[in-house]
């Protein structure tokens, strides 16, 4: 091995070490705050220090006595599930239309469909609030569902569409040649192929709905407060350790639900292939 080659290898290693070091630093900044929240939810002190001096479950006990928290978790869960079903269904239909059907201005219309990703959430919130007020509707849980569906729709659309692009349409032709009608073909051939993507879309829609704050703050009411709104108002007013309990539970929900969802998705994929 020539010296030149040796030097070059050392350089490569040094570069790689640098890259790993920076990556580790980024991971630290992403994960440390979440660890602090979880640990502080068990901290015995009111103003938690890290690492905590003494652990307790008192905040959890207090949390489960508080109806406002439980109601927020319940509202967020309902809205999240409803938005996931709606965004999943509409996103799938829309994606099917975009992939299968030729129609004019497709590019412009698909960007129109993606605008909820780009329009700042503050403006989505204000625009919808003004609109609903103008047509004389009181804010209620249906607003949240409708608007969270809007916010999740572009993601659901993109996920299902990219799966449909990969889908082999000759499979459908084959089924129909063999005598299946369009409905049977959809149920037996198309749906199982696209199902994993639909599950992913629904999981993501649930997560988007569950965590959305900036736009939702305009749509909630006392009885239909969602989890992020409760966390925000608690942090703005008094930091009580109960907010860490709520955040910890949300962490568990928003991490476990997608993992279970993706496990189902993997199972669906294995079953079809």
């Amino acid at each position, binding site marked *: 091995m020539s010296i030149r080659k040796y030097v070059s290898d050392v350089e490569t290693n040094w570069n790689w070490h640098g*890259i790993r070091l920076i990556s580790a630093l980024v*991971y630290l900044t*992403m994960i440390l*705050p979440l660890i602090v929240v979880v640990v*502080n939810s068990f901290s015995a002190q009111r103003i938690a220090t890290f690492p905590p001096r003494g652990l307790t479950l008192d905040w959890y006990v207090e949390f489960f006595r508080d109806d406002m928290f439980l109601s927020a978790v319940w509202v967020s869960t309902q809205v999240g599930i409803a938005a996931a079903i709606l965004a999943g269904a509409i996103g799938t239909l829309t994606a099917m239309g975009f992939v299968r059907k030729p129609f004019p201005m497709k590019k412009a219309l698909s960007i129109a469909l993606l605008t909820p990703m780009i*329009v*700042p959430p*503050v403006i989505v919130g204000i625009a919808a609030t003004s609109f609903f007020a103008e047509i004389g509707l009181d804010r209620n849980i249906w607003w949240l569902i*409708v608007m969270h569906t809007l916010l999740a729709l572009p993601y659901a659309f993109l996920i299902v569409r990219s799966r449909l692009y990969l889908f082999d349409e000759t499979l459908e032709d084959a089924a129909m040649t063999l005598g299946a009608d369009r409905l049977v073909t959809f149920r037996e051939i198309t749906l199982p192929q696209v199902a994993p993507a639909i599950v992913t879309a629904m999981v993501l829609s649930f997560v988007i709905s569950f965590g959305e704050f900036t736009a939702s703050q305009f749509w909630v009411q006392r009885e239909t407060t969602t989890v992020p709104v409760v966390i925000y108002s608690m942090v703005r007013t008094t930091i009580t350790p109960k907010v860490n309990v709520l955040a910890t539970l949300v962490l568990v929900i928003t991490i476990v639900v997608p993992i279970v969802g993706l496990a189902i998705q993997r199972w669906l994929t294995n079953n079809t292939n």
Partner: protein
Amino acid sequence: MSNETASTTAEAPNRIDSIRQRLMESERFGYLLSPGSGLLWVLLFLFLPMTVIVAFSLFRAGEFGTIIYEPTLENYRRFVNGSVYHRVIARSLLIGVVTTLIVLPFGYTLGYFLGRSKSRWTPILLGLVVVQFWVPLVIRTYAWIPILGRQGIFNDFLLWLGVVGQPVEILYTTHGMILGLAVSIMPFMVLPVYSIVSTIDEEIIQAAKTLGASDARAFREVTLPLSWPGVVSGILFTFILSAGSYLAPQLLGGTNDRLIAPVIETVFSQDFNWPFAATLSLVYVAMIVGILYLFSRKADIEEALEGTQL
């Protein structure tokens, strides 16, 4: 009774057949309907409300949060003459640029690392980035409060290092806000870069090196240009999300950090001046459309929006 049951069961398959028949005949209609459902939703609940905003911006606010429905350009005049709102916009854009300049090198490095690493831990490390998308932003933002405070870990660490003699103020300052913003937006840079870098064939880079290129040159002339679409997608998201951020300025920023999104919210929910909030919203949307227009001359917007998908 039994007659009725018999007749319905006899009719049922017929009815289903006829529905099927109709569906097959109306194939064209069905296809028309399918892209329509999503577009209708966006039209009804985003575009229509936006036109209401346009209308509101042409009225003025009366007392007690009422709206006086007489057309006027007063709100636009107020914005044009109000240097405080110019400063808010300029500051938002500046925060967007600074955050992007911070997120770009770190996010690229991590994306590059994930795309090149062959460790069996890579899927888990990638999962840790994806999980960031799942955890609500409000949690990822407020979580910095106990870290950045005077008694927080960050200050403990600096004191322990001996860099500072006494705790520094970082919570409720612009620095703290940018740190929180940069970390929360990081995944939007990491994932598009990762998904592109992981598809770059390593043999191309080896070929460049065999031809005598140094590591730096191979990176500059091969890897970087090939990963450009991911970078562009990351920059677009980082800039738009940070310039329009709401939570980080509210929870981590100082009193000087009045950015456009929180200001609009204040005018709307606290001053109850819906017409002026509408005007500010339209200015803000115009700004973003302008940025997207400049961007669309360099790259494909739809592709960039898709870039965040794994």
